[in-house]
C-alpha cells in the first residue's frame, strides 16, 4: 500500500455503530473517497437491476407449481417495463387475453362454490423480491390456509397492487392477497409486500387494504410474515372487512415486528 494518502478520514467513525446511515465516510477534497463512490454506485445498480429485471414467468410458474397449487400466468394491460413505470393506470388492469382466461376459469369454478381466497404473485417494482421471497413465503403460508377454499395462484407480469381487484372480482373470491415486489431501497432491493383486500372490485381504494411490508430474511422473515397474513386473512373472513378498521384492532392483538 502507498504511504501517501490523499484522503481525509473522519475521526468520528465510532458513531457508525448507532446508525446504518452513510456517515463518517471521509473525503478526498470535498468529494467522497473512491471506495464510497463505488459502494453507492453498487447499491444503486442493484436497485435498478431489481426494477428493470423481467419476471421469468415460465421459470417462476414451474417453481410455484412445485408447491402443489395450480398456477395461472396473467399479465396487466402494460406492454413493457417502460410503459409499466409510466402508466400505473394500465398496471392496475388485466390485458384482454388474461381477462378471458380468468373468465373461463371462473365459469368452471361455480360448481364448487366461491373461493375464500385467491393468491397473486406480481413483479411490481422488484422481480428480484418475487424470485427470492415468493416461494419461501408460500411454503410457509399455504399449510396455514388448509381448510380454506383456495383459488388458483395467479402469476402476474407488470402488475400494480390494484390489479388484484380485477382478478379477485372475476374469479369471484371473497378475499384476495397480492404478493408484490416493493420499490427497492439502496439496502433492500428484494423486499416483498403483501396486500389483502376483502370483497375485491375494480376501483377499491387503499384504505380498504391491509399491508404487510418488508418481507425478506433481513426484514420480516417469510415465516413470520406468513403467520401475520394468516391472522389477517382469518379476521378479515370472519368479520367480512379489510382495511383501516381491521388494522386498528390487529395492533393491539399482534405484537409488531
Amino acid at each position, binding site marked *: 500500500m502507498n504511504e501517501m494518502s490523499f484522503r481525509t478520514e473522519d475521526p468520528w467513525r465510532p*458513531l457508525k455503530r448507532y446508525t446504518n446511515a452513510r456517515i463518517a465516510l471521509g473525503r478526498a477534497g470535498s468529494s467522497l473517497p473512491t471506495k464510497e463512490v463505488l459502494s453507492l454506485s453498487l447499491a444503486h445498480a442493484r*436497485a435498478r437491476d431489481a426494477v428493470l429485471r423481467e419476471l421469468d414467468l415460465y421459470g417462476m410458474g414451474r417453481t410455484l407449481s412445485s408447491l402443489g397449487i395450480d398456477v395461472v400466468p396473467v399479465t396487466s394491460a402494460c406492454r413493457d417495463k417502460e410503459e409499466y413505470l409510466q402508466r400505473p393506470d394500465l398496471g392496475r388492469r388485466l390485458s384482454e387475453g388474461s381477462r378471458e382466461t380468468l373468465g373461463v376459469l371462473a365459469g368452471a369454478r361455480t360448481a364448487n362454490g366461491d373461493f375464500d381466497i385467491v393468491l397473486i404473485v406480481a413483479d411490481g417494482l422488484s422481480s428480484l423480491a418475487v424470485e427470492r421471497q415468493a416461494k419461501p413465503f408460500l411454503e410457509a403460508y399455504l399449510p396455514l390456509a388448509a381448510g380454506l377454499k383456495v383459488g388458483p395462484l395467479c402469476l402476474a407480469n407488470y402488475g400494480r397492487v390494484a390489479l388484484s381487484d380485477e382478478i379477485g372480482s372475476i374469479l369471484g373470491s371473497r378475499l384476495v392477497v397480492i404478493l408484490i415486489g416493493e*420499490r427497492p431501497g439502496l439496502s433492500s432491493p428484494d423486499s416483498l409486500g403483501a396486500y389483502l383486500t376483502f370483497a375485491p372490485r375494480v376501483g377499491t381504494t387503499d384504505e380498504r387494504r391491509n399491508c404487510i411490508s418488508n418481507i425478506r430474511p433481513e426484514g420480516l422473515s417469510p415465516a413470520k410474515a406468513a403467520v401475520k397474513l394468516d391472522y389477517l386473512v382469518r379476521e378479515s373472513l370472519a368479520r367480512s372487512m379489510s382495511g383501516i378498521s381491521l388494522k386498528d384492532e390487529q395492533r393491539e392483538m399482534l405484537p409488531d415486528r
Partner: protein
Amino acid sequence: MPYKTTVGRTVYRFEDLKTVLAKATPERSGDHLAGIAAESAEERVAARMALADIPLKAFLEDFVIPYESDEITRLIVDRLDYKAFGEVASLTVGEFREWLLADSTDTETIARVSPGIMPEMAAAVSKLMRAQDLIAAAKKIEVVSSFRNTIGLPGRLSVRLQPNHPTDDPKGVAASILDGLFYGAGDAVIGINPASDNIDAVCKILTMLDSIISHYEIPTQACVLTHVTTSIKAIERGVPVDLVFQSIAGTQKANESFGVSIALLKEGMEAALSLGRGTVGNDVMYFETGQGSALSANAHHGVDQQTIEARCYALAREFHPLLVNTVVGFIGPEYLYDGKQIIRAGLEDHFCGKLMGLPMGVDICYTNHAKADQDDMDVLLTALASAGVTYIMGVPGADDIMLNYQSTSFHDALNIRRLMGLKPAPEFEEWLIGTGLADEGMGLIPQTSANRLMIGAMEL
C-alpha cells in the same frame, strides 16, 4: 376562450388557457398520465407560440380552476397586488419572458412586481424559457428570510441537515446530525422526517433537537416534518417547536387529501408565533411541494402538474415562510420519468418559487424506479447553485435510509459551496469558524479530540 395558432398549413386550436398551458409544457410523464399533454412535438411548440401571444391580462379572467370551487384560486385572486401587476399589465407572456431577462430588469424591479404575479403567469412564462433563462432570471431574484439566522443572502447557500433514521432512534439521529455539522451542513434547518407521526415520538425528537441546538449554541432552527395538527398539539404540550412544517398542494381538493386548509395553516402559524422562539427574525413556516401531487390525489382539474405546482407558491407566500422546497424527484417516474425531466422540473420550480417571492430550496432527488442517477443530481445541483438556490438537502452519503430515496449529501453541499464560492448563512458561518470546524474560506479543518463536537461525539 379558445386560442389559435397557425403553423405551416395546420391550424392548432386550444379550448382555453389551461389547455394551452398543458400542451405548451415541456414533455413529462405526469401530463401524459393525466391525458393532457401535447400529442406531438409540433403541437407542443404550436401551443407555446399561442401562449407567447396571450396577454398577461387574460390570466385575470380565464382561471384554470374556477373561483367558486377552489379556495386556492380565491386566495390567488383576492390577494393579488394589482398595483404591482400594473408594471407588466400591458405585456404578453412572450414579452414577459423578455422583460424578465432584460438588462434593465434588476433585483429591485422584480421584487416590486412579484406580489402582482399570479402563479399561472409564472408557470406560463417558464414554459417559454430554456434552462439558461430559468437560471438567469432566478439569479436576479433575492428573497431573504430569518429565524435564528439569515437565509437567502447573495453569495450564500444554506443546507437542511436531514438526519433521518428508520426507527427515529435518538442516538442514530444524533450521529447523523453530528456528521452533518462536521461537514458544515445545517444552517437552513435540522429537519427530520419522523418514521412515526405519533405525537409522543414527535415530542421526543423535538426535545432532543432543541437540546442539541442549545448545548452547542448553534444559530439554526429545528423541525420535525410532521402534519401541522401534530405540531399544534406539540406546541400545546409546551414542547419546543421552532418551525411548523406542512406539505402543501396547488388545489383545494389536493390539500384536503393532505388534511390541510388555509385556515388550518394559519392556526399552525399562529401557534408557532406564540412561542416567539426566533432571535434574528420570526419566519416560522416550512413548506414542501412537488409536481404531481395533485394528480396523484386525483385533484388536478385537468391542469398540468407544473402550473399546479406554481399555485402552491401562491399559498406559501401568504405565510412568509422561512423555507420552501420542492421535493422534485421524490414522486416517481409516473410524474417525472427520468433525469432530464427531473432537471427541467427542478429549474422550473426554483424559478417560479423565487418569482413568487419565496425562499426557494430544492430537494434534488430521485427514487430507484426513476431513470436517474447521482450524475443527474450533480448536474441539477450545479445548475441550481448557478441560479442562486436558497438551500439544498444534506443527507449522509445522499442515501436516506428512512425514506428510501437519494438526495444530495453533506459532501455535495460542501463541494458546490467550494466550487461556486458560496457561504452558509452568516451567523452559522461565524459559528463554524468559532467552533473550529471550518476556516475563514469555509475549508473544513481536520478534527482532533479536543473539539467540543468531537467530545460530544465520543460521549454519545
